């Protein structure tokens, strides 16, 4: 197949740039009005968009690991996230510089946990874990692209090249879980440093994949026409993606419930205070449950319909709901730790998200413009060398 027929319309360029600028200004104002608010928003945006980006590209890795033959186009959409990562890395650095400003355990240190909760180590592990993750993802993308080039130029590809791509995908999937866990510990759990829950990290990265899949569906149905990947993004693919989204909404709800139930049942203060504040005894609970219903409940019900799943147009609805709901949930997970008591919303900061969004769309499109919309390496998968077929 040919180079992408996809070139960015002017309005998109402009729109994204405006969004970025507006967002940056909004954040600046937020910082100006109160530094804590600014930092909070930076964390929230970072965590949300990191989740989406890693989730989407994570799926590309997962599909590769699962040797999924229908995911040729979807994978490439995932790959497209790679251009976004440098920007996120920039934000990460900014956060790491300002870490003393927003983590509570700097002014009220906890000696027993000092070995983990200390600023230098915080910075090191964040840079290492995310940096390594992105290097792995990058490697995966470039491998896949080179394989593409070869297939298109009609060279025959040695199976160990395929194997190498699979191998790096496996590695990045495994490392993804670890890196994501560390992010969840540092940017969410450590903000209320007395709280512990073994479930939290898995919950975090599972919901990230959830968001990632939502994003993939969204971008797929928006771009299938323009990128010329139409015949690789047919109703079958949407049905499969829809089912995955459905499965993950159920799974995420399960994890959420498992954590909630366990903590509810024994009612141990060092566990409960976190959940009680967000879901039981304060005005935060409204936002908390709203996020849950928007992000998980409604999509679950919608996705029951086969018709909706199959249609590229309709499946946008659950996808968008998921993205909104889970982002709200992130907000509820982060902000009350610093802003307990009653529900607090910062409209100003909310605009900051525009910057991240704009940048995401921009980088995403740029990638898709430069590289073919279908990863023929995945299409070319043969029965012979298939690995782990769970998710087929």
């Amino acid at each position, binding site marked *: 197949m040919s180079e992408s027929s996809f070139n960015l319309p002017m309005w998109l360029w402009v729109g994204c740039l405006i969004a970025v600028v507006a967002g940056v200004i909004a954040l600046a104002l937020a910082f100006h009005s109160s530094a804590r608010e600014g930092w909070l928003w930076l964390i929230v945006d970072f965590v949300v968009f990191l989740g989406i980006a890693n989730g989407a590209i994570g799926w590309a890795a997962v599909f590769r690991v699962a040797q999924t033959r229908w995911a040729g186009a979807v994978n490439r959409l995932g790959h497209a996230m790679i251009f976004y990562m440098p920007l996120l890395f920039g934000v990460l650095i900014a956060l790491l510089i300002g870490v003393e400003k927003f983590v509570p355990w700097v002014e009220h240190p906890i000696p027993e946990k000092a070995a983990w909760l200390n600023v230098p180590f915080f910075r090191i592990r964040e840079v290492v874990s995310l940096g390594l993750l992105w290097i792995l993802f990058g490697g995966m993308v470039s491998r896949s692209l080179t394989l593409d080039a070869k297939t298109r130029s009609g060279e025959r590809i040695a199976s160990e090249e395929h194997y190498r791509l699979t191998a790096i995908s496996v590695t990045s999937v495994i490392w993804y879980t670890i890196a994501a866990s560390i992010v969840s510990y540092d940017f969410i759990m450590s903000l209320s440093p007395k709280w512990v829950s073994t479930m939290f990290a898995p919950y975090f990265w599972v919901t990230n994949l959830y968001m990632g899949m939502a994003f993939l569906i969204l971008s797929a149905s928006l771009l299938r026409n323009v990128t010329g990947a139409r015949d690789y993004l047919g109703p079958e693919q949407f049905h499969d993606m829809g089912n995955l989204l459905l499965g993950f909404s159920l799974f995420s709800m399960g994890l959420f419930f498992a954590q909630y139930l366990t903590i*509810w*049942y*024994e*009612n*141990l*203060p*060092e566990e*409960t*205070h976190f959940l*009680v504040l967000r879901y*039981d*005894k304060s005005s935060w609970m409204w936002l908390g449950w709203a996020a849950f219903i928007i992000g998980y409940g409604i999509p679950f019900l919608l996705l029951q319909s086969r018709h909706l799943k199959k249609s590229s147009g309709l499946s946008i609805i659950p996808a968008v709901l998921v993205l909104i709901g889970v982002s709200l949930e992130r907000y509820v997970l982060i902000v009350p730790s610093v802003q307990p008591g009653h529900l607090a919303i910062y409209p100003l900061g909310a605009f900051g998200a525009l910057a991240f969004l704009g940048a995401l769309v921009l980088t995403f499109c740029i990638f898709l413009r430069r590289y073919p919309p279908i990863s023929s390496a995945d299409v070319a998968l043969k029965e012979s060398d298939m690995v782990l077929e769970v998710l087929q």
Partner: protein
Amino acid sequence: MGMAAAGTGLASVGFSRLIPFIHQPDEIIPGVSTWYATSCRECPAGCGMIVRNRDARVVKCEGNPYSPVNRGKLCARGQAAVTGLYDPDRIKSPMRRTEQGQLVETSWDDAFASIGNVLSRRPRIAFLTDLQTTSLNSLMKAWLSAFGSDRLITYETINYEYIKAVNGGVVPSYRIDQSDFLISFAADFLETWVSPVEFARQFSVMREVKNRKRGTFVYVGPRVSMTAANADLRIILPPGMSTSFARSIIDGRTIPGIRESDVRTIAQGLKSASRPLILPGLDADSARAASILEGFRTSTLVNRNRPHALTSSATSSELQALISDMENGRIDMLVIYNANPVYSLPEASRFAKALKHVRTVISMYSVMDETTTLANWILPSNTPLESWGDYSPYPGQTNLMQPTMGTLFDTRQTGDILIESARSAGINPVRTFRADSFYEFLRRQWGFPVASGEDAESVSPEWESLVQRGGRWSETGAAPPASGTGVLPKEESSTNREELRLWAFPHIYFYDGRGANRRWLQEIPEPVTNAVWGTWAEIHPSTARKMNIRTDDMLEIAQGGIKVQIPAFVWEGVAPGAIAVPIGEGHSKYGRFASGTGVNILPLLTTPYPAVKVRRLGASKWVTRIRGSDKQHGRDIVQTVAISESLERTSRIRLPLPEGYGKEDFYPGHEYKNHRWAMTVDLNKCIGCHACETACYAENNVAVVGPEGIWRRREMTWLRIDRYIDWKESSPILFQPMLCQHCDAAPCEPVCPVYASAHSDEGLNMQIYNRCVGTRYCSHNCPYKVRRFNWFDYQWPSPLHYQLNPDVTVRSRGVMEKCTFCIQRIREAEMTALRENRNLRDGEVIPACVQTCPTGVYTFGDLKDPNSKVSRIVQSDPRAYQVLAELNTKPAVIYLKRIVERPGR
């Protein structure tokens, strides 16, 4: 509680039948318990006792609140008296030894006929009895003199002769409560020494903190006994070193192995104290040490003009004399009552041989024991609980004893046996003893002679009230007859530090061995070692290391040809160079529970603390003891506060009430209508004596599982005393009563699939036995591990089952059980209040443990009533805390921190 006087009627009631009676005696109303006052005869202390008779069976013993000795409290031994009464191995009828030499049952008539016949030939009689005072004592004297003898020997294994020796021939009375500086030379006055319950109460008074001060207590001795564990300072010396230590206190010369800072502290304290008190221990060395310090600083709290009954116990020399007389055939008849020299005499074997030279040996003990089996006549007398009688521990303070139930077997009162035998020897009792029965004799002694034709109606009311109150207690009275004054042996020039000294100490429950057939006492752990069902030999780690002995290694202890095998128990609680072994176990014949359990160390005690050869055998035997770690592992379970530290409440209390639920709780908790029962446990008062645990066994029909059960960690006790050891602390051994905490958010409740573990509307955490299916999840989820599971159907061999409390279910196999806060007592009180239609008064509900605690550790009451004692303590006492509060179970048992000398680490 209504105490009733037993008329003459009761003793004659036939008890073989169960309620309802055909002729129902007026005292006995089915389902209603009657309390009879009597005296405890488990040891020479002579506590007043009231006994609960329910449906004509004795079910529980408690302290007599009128008795000045124990003021309504009772120790473990006293409460176990009832199991002595129901010992399944009691002698059921008189027995005689045939020519072939075996014992056969016989009738009283036959017995009296033949014995009277012997007596009529005026034999040379010696009478060996345990400590008896007033009436029975004088009857014995009269009986002997009737046959021209005066050889009445009061045989007490622990005869206090060295104490008498340093106190002018008497065992004085002490006022520990008034002391501000107390030194005890191996005198375990909280366990066995003279009058434990009395002293426990006095001690707790002495230890009360008044404006940041309290009496100091120093313990000097070879072993950290329970008493020592309660001291502020312990000087642990090898046996025989106390004397030189006492000297060092006076002249300041330090002796090796003792921190001179300690010596200085003691000397300082002794000088500065306004009312010091020095208690002499049982052995010569301790007694001498005490007397030396007495000389240095005389105490006003020792009253030699008010001697204790123990004064009349015979000295060893008298016993020597008796034995040699027996050997030389100078004695034809030996009458033995409640004395067991064949078990307890150091030269037991010699005594046993000597018995062969006595033509007629009569034993009147009610249980078969080592001595009784050698008698050729056994005339079983009633147990004290079945008898009339009296006992006065101090001059003028006399407990009156009455039968608390009819006789179980074909036994008779000791006094009546004597009178009858005399009659059958042709003596007219009315002329000789001025009484036809012991009851009449007793009445006369007390100045209320039985009028002719007297019946239940015409009994004099004074007498009635005496019997009802259980005695007469005046400050003055006749001193007990002093048997020979003891003499201190010459002081040993120097104790050889190389050889091991055997330190045999009376067991807190078995005393001199008489308690060993009470299975409660076997099952309840010895306070400091937690050992049960057996004997152990304590060795200091340093010593043990030298001989490479580890705990549970079987040791052979040899002295003068006698060898015994005892498993080792290695711990820091005993002086290096000493090997400490408890007295009281190792009976060969004393009922099924005592026989073959443990080892008898007494035969080795030719001198108070003999040098022994100790050899480690290859074999090993597990020292039967309660398992589990004895460290706190930094978990802050028993919390302490130094007397110097400021007394603000540091720990937050999560009340077991709606207000106890806060921001971090998911749910609102309970609404209580009338009551919310709760308890406070003052760890500062707890001395670790396990009286409460015994009370719980008695009240709640708690099963006994035996050594195997203990080994499998299946003890059934509802209330246990946890003990934690840390030798670096100023109070190295800490006791903590642990019972069901009746949590408000009880973790055990929700996990039960069938609601067998539920919560009552009075805050009690209930276990519904007949709903329980036995998943045992509740036990797991109980962080205090106070729930007990019935692994088998546990047995009460007849007649022990008579003791079962009819108000409490006996749990069957496969169900969980646990402390109920004595719900049956709560209900009884509520019913009474209802009947008198009034509200329940604070302190009206008294669970068994609360009732008996000699030092008043527990306070029980309604937390919902803000003025109840318990509420006030919980609100105001700065020492209040909850065990494992971080688990947010909101326990209703609130502990008060123990006050220690130095702050904990």
